């Protein structure tokens, strides 16, 4: 197992190199650079700075160098944990992303928990009562959840919070805790706000998982070993939870590794609409302003997360399903 993981990790290296090059190309694609976009932006808001002043800044940030050199600067730094510098925020990218990454993960984990807690029981219920009215209506609700664009759900949530609940949402903290140091009260406040984005982000995923769990359960419930378990004299409850769910949940567990990176990228739009202090809006902003190391690092980070998620998925599946051996 350990050698397998090490081997897989080693195999990631060439993949990562190619991905980093592709990322760099992608973030370099838009014409111009950060200072061009800044200049236009400043001109729009009627302030202006001299071309020469910008050229001086370009030089400071190595933007006057050829592309391949810029790439080597960046990737060389990445290896040492320095992901470059954000032009707009004048901070190392690592600091910026780091600050928001925590909340991003908390939110994604929250959505993950939400998805599991809601989807799995409903999936099981739906499968056990297949083709009943409750199954039909749950399926229908799940489909609706899948079909509403999550930014629309986010808009509705925003509307509700401003006009019905007096505007406590929009962000993850109340005014009095927004800038306060971490404390139990602040965590509590966070939890009070977190559920809105968690539900909005988790909606589509919950629907998908519910469908998956239902299918998986249906498949497993028809297996002979379920009958065997019943024939043993096991109570129905145990037949379902110990035998059916234990196997039916394997595919869910194996996708769990992928769910976190998927949730992180899926939350971008929702976070933009709801104005959440997570990494997504920062990435969007970086794309707008061509703050390329910030955008590139975020893209790379998610790619790495996805690759690790893949690995994690394989490992998890091997852990829960004795039939699978990692070699």
């Amino acid at each position, binding site marked *: 197992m350990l050698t397998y993981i090490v081997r897989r990790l080693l195999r990631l290296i060439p993949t990562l190199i190619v991905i980093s090059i592709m990322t760099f190309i992608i973030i370099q694609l838009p014409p111009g650079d950060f200072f061009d976009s*800044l200049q236009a932006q400043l001109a729009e808001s009627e*302030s202006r700075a001299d071309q020469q002043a910008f050229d*001086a800044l370009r030089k400071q940030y190595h933007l006057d160098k050829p592309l391949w050199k810029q790439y080597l600067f960046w990737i060389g730094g990445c290896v040492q944990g320095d992901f470059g510098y954000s032009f707009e*925020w*004048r*901070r190392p990218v690592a600091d910026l992303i780091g600050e928001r990454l925590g909340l991003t993960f908390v939110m994604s984990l929250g959505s993950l928990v939400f998805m599991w807690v809601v989807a799995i029981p409903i999936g099981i219920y739906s499968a056990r009562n297949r083709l009943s009215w409750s199954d039909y209506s749950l399926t229908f609700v799940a489909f609706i959840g899948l079909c509403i664009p999550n930014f629309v759900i986010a808009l509705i949530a925003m509307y509700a919070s401003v006009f019905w609940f007096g505007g406590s949402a929009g962000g993850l903290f109340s005014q009095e805790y927004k*800038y306060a140091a971490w404390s139990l009260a602040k965590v509590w406040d966070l939890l009070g706000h977190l559920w809105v984005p968690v539900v909005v982000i988790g909606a589509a995923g919950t629907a998908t998982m519910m469908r998956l769990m239902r299918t998986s359960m249906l498949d497993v419930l028809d297996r002979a070993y379920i009958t065997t378990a019943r024939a043993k004299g096991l109570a129905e409850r145990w037949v379902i939870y110990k035998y059916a769910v234990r196997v039916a949940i394997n595919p869910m567990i194996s996708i769990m590794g992928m769910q976190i990176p998927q949730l992180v990228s899926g939350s971008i739009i929702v976070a933009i609409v709801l104005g959440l202090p997570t990494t997504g809006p920062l990435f969007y902003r970086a794309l707008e302003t061509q703050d390329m190391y910030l955008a590139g690092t975020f893209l790379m980070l998610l790619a790495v997360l996805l690759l690790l998620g893949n690995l994690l998925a394989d490992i998890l599946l091997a852990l829960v399903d004795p039939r699978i051996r990692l070699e």
Partner: protein
Amino acid sequence: MSNRLTCITAVVLGLVMVPVMVPALEYQQAPMLAAAVERGELPPLEQRLPPLPMIVEPVHEIGRYGGTWHRMMKGSSDFHAYSRLVYEQMVRWQVSETGGLEVGPGLVREWEFTDSDRTLRLHLRRGLRWSDGAPFSADDVLFWWHHIANDANLSGSLPAYWKPDDTPMEVVKADSFTVDLRFSKPYPLAVMYLAFKGNQWPLVFERSGFFAPRHFLEPYLPQAGAADVATYATFEQAANDFNPERPVMSAWRVKEWEPGNHLLAERNPYYWKVDPEGNQLPYLDQIRMEIFLNTEMINFRAVTGMLQMQQRHFTRENLPLLRSFTEKRDYSILTYEAAGIRAIMPNLQYPGDPALEKLLMTREFRIALSLAIDRDLINRLCYDGTGRITAMKLHPSAPDYVELTHAPNYAVYDPERARALLDSIGLDQRDADGYRLGLDGKTVSLIMELATVVGPDMDAVEIVRSQWEAVGIKTALKPEERTLYFQRVAQNGEHMIGVQGAEATFPLLSSARWFSTSLWCEWGHHWARWHLSGGERGIEPPPEVKRLQQLQAILSVTVDADERKRLWQEVMRNHAENLWVIPLVSQATSIGVVSNDFGNVSERGVASWVAMTPGYLNPETFYSKSARALTTMDGR
């Protein structure tokens, strides 16, 4: 008025230069500072204030200490959201008796022109201290001049406004509190530039300024001639406006800066202004800037009543929404005058098509286009009737404001006359779709380019398009990404018609669209190029434009006020008669919200970049009516 008087009093008292003044006022300080003094963390107030603090008259009443100013800031390129609150220039814009803007004292308590108006002598206020307690002196100005403005690695080249006639000014220290600026010719604009660009360097991305804390920055100074960019980056880090370590001269100093998240500024214990009762300003303990990335969040915060005072980033179309919640959330709508002139600016040297260039250059054609626009309709539909219909004229808030009389007005709606005019210049033939044919037999097809995609300004242009089509001129709209727009206009001058705003309060400081002397001028890019290159490149302008270009040069050396007004009348008449640009409807107001709990916020004002609104309205006198003052320096 009384405000001005107190200033003058201060100046006069300063001139007497009594070494130890018995303070006419008993000075008071904020509780949090008093507590710090008590704990021995700060010297007593008398040692922190200059001998003669600047007295600022609040617009309404004496305020009280305490409170946090909650505001929002969009990204760090929106640094104006903060820097306008800590507006502390060498000299400052202040409200004149006529309600316009004029230059008044700031860090410089007095100034005078000598040497046939070629030398500007600045008298710095004495005994001022940086927020870390170090004294402020002429050396801080000279530090900026020698080590920042003249270091190409930091500043590129010297800003054009400090080298009139392409000759850099000389900055000479007469004594610790007197600085001479020497120019090669009379340069009255220097005072305006001191009010506009006389801030602490670098103002984030604007990278302009006039002084910097020598004692703090000297250790970071790159070795002379060092090419290592890393040392410059370190220097920039230290000098950066958001660096909490960096001392400032403003009412608040940055305490926490979390990029992408928030900014916290706290009162400067060494701030050198007091109210008429001797209370050290500012009243407000701190400023909290929430950094947001989604523009909609600002409306969100406003209608939930979480902003104390903010007029950035609100758009007119949200006014009904903002108004709907004023009572429920206890705030008021703030309407400040916006002094821009929005106009359609045809490229009069359009390089794409000679026939079209000739047509655009035809005055009657432009007049016809102007007459075809129903500006009242646009005003009603796009700006709720609050827009301003004006030709290229100075706004009443302009320091040089003068009325223009007996000039033709083409900003009226007269489609019949427009049609007749078009027929009369030979555009009487129509194509199969009913569009007018040009003199070359091809359909006249106009393209308006603009750097906005949504919002009332876009809607207005859309209406213009339909109205031009109604008189038979085929017109298309081309909304462009702003980078592209400025590239097309300012770099290449290849656009056909641009739609933009022109400055109407300080046209000389933002002159691009007035005089055709800058490449940013939509209607005269190639003429400006000719002018700037001394006739080597670009296109030679017609005499009327040459006169405009000349007028700018004359205005920039004329100190006499009456003469300036006369010159301005000529500029405006030139525009009115030639109609270089076709005036549209300008947003006359900039809206904002102010909490009903917030005091001393002037109901009237001009929203202007140059005046750093609300900076010139003395934000240090704003106060919260309900807030309790913080008693520790570490208030959260």
